[in-house]
């Protein structure tokens, strides 16, 4: 969708060809840049401030984490309508665990260091088990995923409601709160250190891939193309780190932090938030899921089963067990998202994650995951989630009326898929 006829069109094509970049990815990045620039102009530069980018990222994490799992679900020609409800269920379990069960019933007391880990384990386990149950019903009992998860949409949120007596649960454990975003950031030094580690890892990965191809005497990209790719990766990683490090903590918050330690804040002292822990979790999830998709047998089988279920079966792949694994993974990610979402909102309320199933599916689809199966990328889904969230936040900043916000998001979803279909027609792919 980027191949608009420009005077330098010919040269551009060969440049991008040499980079072997996914044109669909370029299109999405282009759309994202456009959204950012437009909102930034309308809001007189308030959209692209460190503070807004920080907030945008911590709002995106929960949906983005689930969207990576939804890619696998949709790639295998299934759908999961229950992710928002499962998130609410996991959140209810964790709310009950950290507010009632662990500190009171089990008598650990408030602020005990074991409360957060046990709570998180409980939430992740709940999600994984619900997902595995969904997978079993779909894979072994042959009930369509649409039906199983449509039922789950009704069941799990209300199960959570029942567990929590419909109460809003809080305040949350202080360690647990670290996963929400603003309460848990890495600070300047650690953020830079991590940024450098990620940048080095990206360069190393590109270099390794090239070395492997040279070893087998396969054709490789020209060296300048590889270096360009490395440069883009490093610039993106360090750029984002710099933005997080540019967001300074308000004076009041700093004074409070010093006061808590019984010290007095020195005059002129400043500190930045740095990278939020929740964003770090998203990065780890996205990288792990990409490795899973591309470098493991499980990932290969997921895409094979999506491309041709019969072929996968005839190749000796246990496609039923595969379905269980995919949905269990989806459930696990719902649990993880519940940790982030609950910690960000600082309590459990029964409406947590409402309509998330639609945001998650939309993120995956905007990110290029084909509902017909077999096609989809993790980075696409994450980018899809970011695009959706920027649209929503941007419109809220500009002051677009609430009904129009949803109308526009809905229209963008349909438009994105239409663009994708046109793009595939042009490149000769079957739609």
């Amino acid at each position, binding site marked *: 969708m980027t191949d608009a006829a420009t005077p330098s069109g010919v040269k551009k094509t060969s440049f991008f060809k040499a980079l072997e970049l996914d044109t669909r990815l370029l299109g999405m990045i282009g759309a994202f840049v456009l959204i950012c620039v437009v909102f930034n102009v309308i809001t007189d530069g308030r959209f692209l401030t460190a503070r807004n980018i920080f907030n945008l990222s911590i709002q995106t994490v929960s949906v983005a984490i689930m969207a990576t799992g939804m890619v696998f679900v949709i790639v295998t020609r299934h759908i999961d309508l229950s992710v928002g409800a499962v998130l609410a269920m996991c959140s209810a379990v964790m709310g009950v665990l950290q507010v009632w069960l662990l500190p009171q019933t089990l008598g650990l007391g408030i602020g005990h260091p074991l409360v957060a880990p046990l709570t998180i384990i409980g939430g992740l386990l709940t999600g994984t088990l619900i997902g595995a149950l969904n997978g079993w019903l779909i894979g072994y009992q042959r009930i369509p995923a649409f039906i199983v998860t449509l039922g789950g949409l009704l069941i799990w949120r209300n199960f959570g409601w029942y567990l929590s007596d419909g109460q809003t649960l809080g305040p949350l454990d202080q360690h647990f709160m670290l996963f929400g975003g603003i309460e848990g950031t890495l600070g300047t030094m650690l953020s830079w250190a991590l940024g450098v580690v990620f940048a080095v890892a990206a360069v190393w990965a590109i270099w390794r891939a090239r070395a*492997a*191809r040279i*070893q*087998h005497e*396969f054709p490789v990209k020209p060296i300048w193309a590889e270096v360009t790719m490395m440069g883009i990766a490093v610039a993106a990683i360090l750029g984002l780190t710099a933005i997080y490090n540019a967001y300074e903590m308000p004076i009041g918050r700093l004074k409070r932090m010093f006061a808590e330690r019984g010290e007095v804040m020195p005059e002129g002292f400043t500190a930045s938030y740095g990278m939020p822990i929740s964003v770090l979790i998203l990065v780890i999830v996205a990288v792990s899921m990409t*490795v899973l998709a591309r*470098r*493991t*047998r499980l*990932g*290969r*089988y997921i*895409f*094979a*089963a*999506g*491309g*041709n279920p*019969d*072929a*996968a*079966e*005839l*190749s*000796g*792949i246990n496609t039923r067990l595969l379905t269980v694994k995919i949905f269990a993974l989806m459930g696990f990610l719902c649990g993880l998202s519940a940790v982030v979402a609950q910690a960000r909102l600082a309590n459990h309320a029964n409406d947590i994650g409402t309509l998330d199933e639609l945001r998650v599916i939309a993120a995956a689809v905007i990110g290029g995951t084909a509902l017909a199966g*077999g*096609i989809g990328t993790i980075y696409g889904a994450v980018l899809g989630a970011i695009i959706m969230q920027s649209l929503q936040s941007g419109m809220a900043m500009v002051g677009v009326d609430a009904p129009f916000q949803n109308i526009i998001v809905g229209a963008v979803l349909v438009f994105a898929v239409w663009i994708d279909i046109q793009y595939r027609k042009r490149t000769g*792919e*079957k739609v």
Partner: protein
Amino acid sequence: MSTRGTPLVELRDISIAFGGIKAVDHVTVDLYPGEVVGLLGHNGAGKSTLIKCLSGAYQMDAGEIRINGEKAEIHNPRDARKYNIETIYQTLALADNLDAASNLFLGRELVTPMGFVDDAQMEAETRKIMGRLNPNFRKFKEPVKALSGGQRQSVAIARAVYFNAKILIMDEPTAALGPHETQMVAELIQELKAQGLGIFLIEHDIHNVMKLCDRASVMKNGQLVGTVNVNEVTDEDILGMIILGKKPEGVAS
């Protein structure tokens, strides 16, 4: 035939029914090393169903499969692969969204010591075997849906040949191919035969049967009409078996 020792494969008295319809009805066929046995019959005669019992795609209701004289338990495609049985399905059974190497190694990926799939190694092996089977093949990086019918066929054949099959099942391997590619498949069959593989060949083209097969087993309505040595009969005899279900007189099998 008793002078030839133990058959490589014996399908004894195989029956399988789908919802009361007997797709395969007490059929017995066998296959020796270095032999090509043609399976013939009209559409719906039960040929594909019969060999799917051997390849593990279907489970037979009754009967026995013997490999090298010993009873074999084949419940799924994985079991069949353990007995070095490879199948080229009529539909090719390729995952269209994956490249040639991923399809060739599907279910049997080469992995690095870390346990990750070794794409570079698999591509190298694929280039090697395709260099032998189809030297013009170039599209190693593209999903197989971008390939022509013949190229797709060669990927499916490469998958069956690569893993040292002892028993090869080919379900109409030349149906989608042009004359040149058909000739290549014919040469490959001769080569594999010379290496001592046993091949079941499902084929509609009677000339290919006469050219490629040593014996032909004809099925009609799920039952075995008979098995004949191809060089002892004419193509009219075989057509008679297929169409009328009648075995020519005075022909040993």
